[in-house]
């Protein structure tokens, strides 16, 4: 019962905010709608019984990445690239013209359709369980798996994060130092 209500709310929040992201004129609004989408996906994780993933999603995405995106938008001005000449679709899409949106819709539709047919033909042998599994805490199991079966990927991801952090700090450091060094 409660799971159904949570699922419906989260699904509506996710898809509605994603559509709003697509048609928002202001890129700042797009970032805020991304926040709603990510919270909705965290709710979907809860309905799937993935408590640890839901909390990680909330902390990393909602608390980290969206804030980073907002910083980037504000530092780069969030300029709109709307050509004022267009009439009909000029109200809806931001930062693109109607041709780019039309071609993008067509391309992604064809791509998704082809992938769908491909996967449907390949994965016919997946057994889907009908009965709902009981909700149990997954934290212990995830911790064990991360340090036994997936330990190589775990360590590699830590190296990747360190590299990304150092790389981001080097790339985005202020230009004044560089001018002074030159």
């Amino acid at each position: 019962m409660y799971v159904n209500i949570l699922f419906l709310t989260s699904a509506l929040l996710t898809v509605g905010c994603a559509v709003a992201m697509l048609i928002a004129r202001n890129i700042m609004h797009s970032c805020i709608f991304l926040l709603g989408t990510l919270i909705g996906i965290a709710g979907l994780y809860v309905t799937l019984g993935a408590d640890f993933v839901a909390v990680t999603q909330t902390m990393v995405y909602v608390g980290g990445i969206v804030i980073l995106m907002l910083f980037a938008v504000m530092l780069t001005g969030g300029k709109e690239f709307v050509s004022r000449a267009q009439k009909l679709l000029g109200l809806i899409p931001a930062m693109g013209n109607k041709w780019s949106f039309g071609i993008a819709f067509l391309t992604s539709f064809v791509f998704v359709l082809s992938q769908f047919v491909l996967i449907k033909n390949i994965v016919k042998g997946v057994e889907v369980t009908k009965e709902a599994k009981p909700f149990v805490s997954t934290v212990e199991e995830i911790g064990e798996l991360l340090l036994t079966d997936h330990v190589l990927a775990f360590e590699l991801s830590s190296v990747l994060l360190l590299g990304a952090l150092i790389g981001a700090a080097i790339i985005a450091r202020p230009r004044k130092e560089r001018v002074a060094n030159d």
Partner: protein
Amino acid sequence: MISLVSYLAISLLLFFIGLTLMIARKNIVAILLGIELILNAAALNFVAYSRFAASNIDGHIFSLFVIVIAAAEAAVGLAIVIHYFQLKETIHIDEATELRN
């Protein structure tokens, strides 16, 4: 009532919207937003299959790694965008051809 197909439908919609966002927008930050949506759709698929079609929770591990990769990608991508904006004073994707003067 809640089946695997409903989760797959949500994930499909998210992927579709993210791909459209990525192709259609001209602002580099908006393209990064589309990439985030696509990564989230993939992670949602992993967890959904882990619940409905598998007896283990390896899908959770995969979605955690997807989150880690997304964090690293967002950090580096936004650093490049900010650096490019400092150099060229624009973030239009069609004009972004070089990263140094």
